[in-house]
């Protein structure tokens, strides 16, 4: 009998624990990172920083998951949704299909997807004006270049990365119409987000071909670009997170994409239906969603004239005086 009570007690505690855990998970926000990995020092890390900022600010808890392969997308969404996580935030352009399916199955859960558009009543799609931010760093690159050639190393060869390139190229041409551009992509599979060796080789090839500033829009692979530039004594431009600190003196600037702000805001607002904003949210220069990084690490690299020119361009883009073409609207990049 004594034994029975003990066992029953343990069982009851177990059940209570499970209930408690389920309760704790309820309405906790969740974030799912894309294949580059949580600590890619770039896109996913920005998302992670946003989640951490929310945690520091509110003291709340959140759950997160790093994807290991494409097949896990739907499974991960369903698991978080059925555990009661709300909102579920995901970072990455590859979420469209999986989220389209799962969002319909869980109408009471709010989803926020960054970099993709999913048309469902319970989904907020956040997209960034990467082309305008890239335009600004393109202008900085062209002004810094002494060889008249600037390079671009993309991650996976997909439309959103062409959007970066197209903006970058337009920005470079805006300040130096005769600038020469070299464009390369690390690969055609998701492995291209995490292949710094190939990205580094591409960068070396671009330096050999005369480039002296290279913009890396390549997630984790971009680290190889920054390293190659530091080794060669040339300049690289980081992306998504502020990467200026990685190789001070060699990272010219970083094209900021405030994924962190988007995630923090989503964690704050999307959990509650009163503040949840389904539909498409576009974050651009005006919303400080994109921009270029200027801090102590690259202050010496960007002179006042450059800064003035770029800030002027930024103002003109915001006022509509300069229209930057968005590659993803028609899959072309006129004039480049």
């Amino acid at each position, binding site marked *: 009998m004594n034994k029975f009570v003990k066992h029953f007690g343990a069982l009851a505690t177990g059940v209570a624990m499970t209930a408690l855990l389920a309760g704790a998970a309820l309405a906790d926000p969740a974030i799912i990172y894309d294949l580059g990995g949580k*600590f890619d020092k770039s896109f996913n890390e920005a998302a992670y920083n946003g989640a951490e900022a929310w945690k520091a600010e509110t003291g709340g808890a959140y759950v997160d998951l790093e994807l290991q392969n494409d097949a896990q997308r739907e499974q991960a969404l369903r698991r978080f949704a059925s555990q009661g996580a709300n909102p579920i935030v995901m970072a990455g352009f590859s979420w469209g299909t999986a989220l389209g399916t799962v969002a319909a199955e869980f109408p009471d859960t709010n989803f926020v997807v960054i970099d993709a558009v999913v048309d469902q009543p319970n989904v907020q799609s956040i997209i960034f004006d990467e082309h305008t931010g890239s335009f600004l760093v393109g202008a900085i690159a062209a002004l810094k270049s002494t060889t008249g050639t600037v390079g671009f190393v993309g991650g996976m060869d997909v439309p959103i990365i062409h959007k970066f390139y197209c903006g970058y190229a337009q920005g470079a041409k805006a300040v130096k119409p005769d600038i020469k551009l070299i464009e390369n992509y690390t690969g055609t599979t998701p492995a291209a987000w995490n*292949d710094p*060796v190939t990205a580094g080789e591409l960068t070396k090839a671009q330096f*050999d071909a005369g480039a002296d500033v290279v913009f890396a829009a390549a997630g984790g692979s971009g680290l190889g670009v920054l390293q190659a530039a530091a080794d060669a004594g040339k300049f690289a431009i980081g992306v998504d997170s502020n990467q200026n600190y990685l190789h001070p003196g060699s990272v010219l600037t970083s094209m900021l994409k405030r994924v962190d702000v988007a995630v923090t805001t989503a964690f704050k607002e999307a959990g509650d239906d009163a503040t949840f904003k389904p539909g498409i949210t576009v974050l651009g220069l005006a919303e400080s969603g994109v921009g270029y990084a200027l801090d102590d690490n690259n202050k010496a690299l960007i002179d006042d004239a450059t800064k003035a020119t770029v800030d002027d361009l930024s103002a003109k883009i915001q006022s509509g005086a300069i229209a930057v073409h968005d590659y993803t609207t028609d899959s072309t990049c006129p004039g480049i």
Partner: protein
Amino acid sequence: MDLVIILSTLDATIRLSTPLLLACLAGLYSERAGVFDIGLEGKMLAAAFGAAAVAAVTNNVWLGLLAGVGVSLSTSALQGAAAITLKGNQLIAGVAINMLAAGLTTFLGIQWFAQGGRTPALTPDSRFGNMTLPFADELAGVPVLGQIYSELISGHNLLVYIAFLAVPITWFVLYRTRFGLRLRAVGENPKAVDTAGISVIALRYQAVLITGLLCGLAGAFFSIAQGSGFGNNMTAGKGFIALAALIFAKWKPVPAMFTCLLFGFLDALQIRLQNTDIFGVTVPVQAIQALPYILTVVLLAGFIGKAVGPKAGGVAYTKER
């Protein structure tokens, strides 16, 4: 194309062939002794992680190299124990090593450094920098020959020179020493070697450990020479390409070097041909990226002829039933 572009392509060829060459020679020792080694990839990956982890923590490139080689040697010993002593299937042992390395490096990386499996970026002290050979700067002004010397031959890191030095050394060991003769014999007819009173098991272990040493150097090249830190699965199938190169070279050291240089060259070319116009047509990136693989298939299928491996390869040696 002018000389500078050609030289830079060849320069990249050397960089990109180095890990292939080290891995290919590594496989050569093992397979010549009759132990098929499909685990080159895993050993390189484990070594790359060990080298980067120790180099990052100690800030010393030599300790990193030592750790990389040590990790690879112990992995080799494990594989040897399974395939030689326990007479397990050699292919399965190799596959197991690959899977173990892929999983364990990521797991330990996350546990130790909490950067998603990546090791911290290395400082210049903890990587092999590029060496300038004597007189390289003075000769750089001399047209063609001087440029070739200063651009192509000088300015690589230590492991590159070790890899290319390993070729004549391997040739000498294999064809001009008693050990080499026995090594080749044990891969062709272990019974005869055994009858002559030489231990087949000991010879095969020696071969497998040399494989481990060379794989360790190849792995270290990835993480502390060419790259700066370890990234998940950073060897990216190079171990298997090295295996293909080994077959293509018919298990001979000098042809192995040329095969690896060819693969490296195709890789370097692929990088430089992206988005360039060839005869007025812009070739899609995908087609260019597939080029090395297409050529590999064509070469393997059409030009190599019959590749016959060591006769006793793949079979564990049993003294008596």
